[in-house]
C-alpha cells in the first residue's frame, strides 16, 4: 500500500482502454489499464468522468467487475437510453481510448474472505457486476465459504457473464440460481418469476445460520428484496445493499 500512500488523496487518472467485451445487447465490459492502481476490494467502485469539448463534465460511479487478483481493472456498463455517460461508454468508446477515473472508492458493499458467510448474493439485472467481483475473488483465494448467487434477469439473453457464471457454478462451494422474469427458453429448469419472499425463503440459508447477504440492483428490486429478507427473519445488519438507477446513467 506504499504506492497508495504516495498518491495521497483521491486523484483522477487516465486509464487506457485495453479491450471491450459485449456481454449482452445492452451491456459491455471495459477492460482498463490504469497507470497507478493501488488495488481494490471486491465490491468497490470507481468514479468515471467525461469532459466535453466545451468543458462540461459528467461524472458517474461504476462498480468494479474484476477481482482484486486480476491483473487489470474491468468495469461493466449497461446502456441507459437517456443517460449522459453510459451511451458513450457502451457505444462510442474504442480500444486505445483513454478514460478518466478515480478510485477505488466505497468500503461498505465489500466482501472479503475474513468476513465469512455463508454468503448469499442477490442480483437484479446488471446489479450482478460487483457480485461477479466477489465470486471471482472467492475463486481466486480458493475460499471454502459457501456461496449462493440468486440472479434475476428478464431473459436468458440479458444474463450478464452467462457462460462464466455457468462455469463457476461447477465449483463445489458455488451455487448459482437464475430466475428469468419475462421470457424463459424451452425446457428452462430455473425459476421463472420475480424474486419474492417465498423464493428467497427457498434459496437462502435459514436466518438461524446468519448468512451474510449482498443485494444489488435497481432501487425497487433492492428495497423489495431487503424488506422480504427482514420479514423472513434475517438480521438487517447482515444485509448490505447497493442501488443503482437511471441517475447512474
Amino acid at each position: 500500500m506504499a504506492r497508495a500512500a504516495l498518491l495521497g488523496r483521491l486523484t483522477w487518472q487516465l486509464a487506457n482502454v485495453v479491450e471491450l467485451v459485449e456481454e449482452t445487447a445492452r451491456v459491455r465490459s471495459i477492460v482498463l489499464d490504469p497507470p497507478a492502481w493501488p488495488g481494490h476490494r471486491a465490491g468497490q467502485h470507481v468514479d468515471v468522468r467525461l469532459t466535453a469539448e466545451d468543458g462540461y463534465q459528467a461524472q458517474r460511479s461504476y462498480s468494479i467487475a474484476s477481482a482484486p487478483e486480476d491483473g487489470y481493472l474491468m468495469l461493466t456498463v449497461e446502456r441507459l437510453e437517456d443517460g449522459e455517460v453510459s451511451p458513450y461508454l457502451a457505444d462510442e468508446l474504442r480500444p486505445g481510448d483513454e478514460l478518466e477515473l478515480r478510485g477505488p472508492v466505497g468500503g461498505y458493499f465489500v466482501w472479503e474472505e475474513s468476513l465469512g458467510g455463508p454468503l448469499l448474493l442477490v442480483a437484479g439485472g446488471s446489479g450482478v457486476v460487483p457480485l461477479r467481483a466477489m465470486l471471482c475473488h472467492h475463486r481466486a483465494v480458493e475460499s471454502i465459504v459457501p456461496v449462493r448467487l440468486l440472479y434475476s434477469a428478464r431473459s436468458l439473453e440479458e444474463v450478464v457473464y452467462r457462460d462464466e457464471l455457468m462455469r463457476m457454478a461447477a465449483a463445489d462451494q458455488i451455487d448459482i440460481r437464475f430466475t428469468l422474469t419475462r421470457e424463459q427458453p424451452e425446457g428452462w429448469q430455473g425459476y421463472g418469476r420475480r424474486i419474492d419472499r417465498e423464493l428467497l425463503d427457498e434459496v437462502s440459508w435459514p436466518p438461524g445460520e446468519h448468512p451474510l447477504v449482498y443485494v444489488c440492483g435497481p432501487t425497487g428490486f433492492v428495497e423489495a428484496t431487503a424488506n422480504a429478507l427482514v420479514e423472513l427473519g434475517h438480521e438487517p445488519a447482515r444485509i448490505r445493499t447497493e442501488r443503482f438507477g437511471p441517475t447512474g446513467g
Partner: protein
Amino acid sequence: MNALDGNAIAGSLLDVFGAEMTTATGVCGSCGTSAPVAEFEVYLRAPGAVARCRSCRSVLMVLVTIRGLTCVDLRGLAALGLAPTSGG
C-alpha cells in the same frame, strides 16, 4: 424520482473527508435513527447530491460542487462517526 444510496457518493465523500465514509455511522438530527452512510437515501438529480434519512426522510447531507469547489452541509446530522474498522 429514483433514490440511490450512499454508495453512490463514496468518491465525493472520500474527496471531501479524506477517508472512506460510507462505512461511517450517521445519526439523524430529526428522528435519531442511526445508519451507515451507505444506507442513506441519496438523490443525485438535485443540483448536487442530497442524502436523506431512510426512516423520516429528513435531509442529512448536501454536497454541491461548482468549479472544483465542494460545499458540504451536514446540519441534518446529529453525529457522524467513523466506524472502528473503516477499511478501504
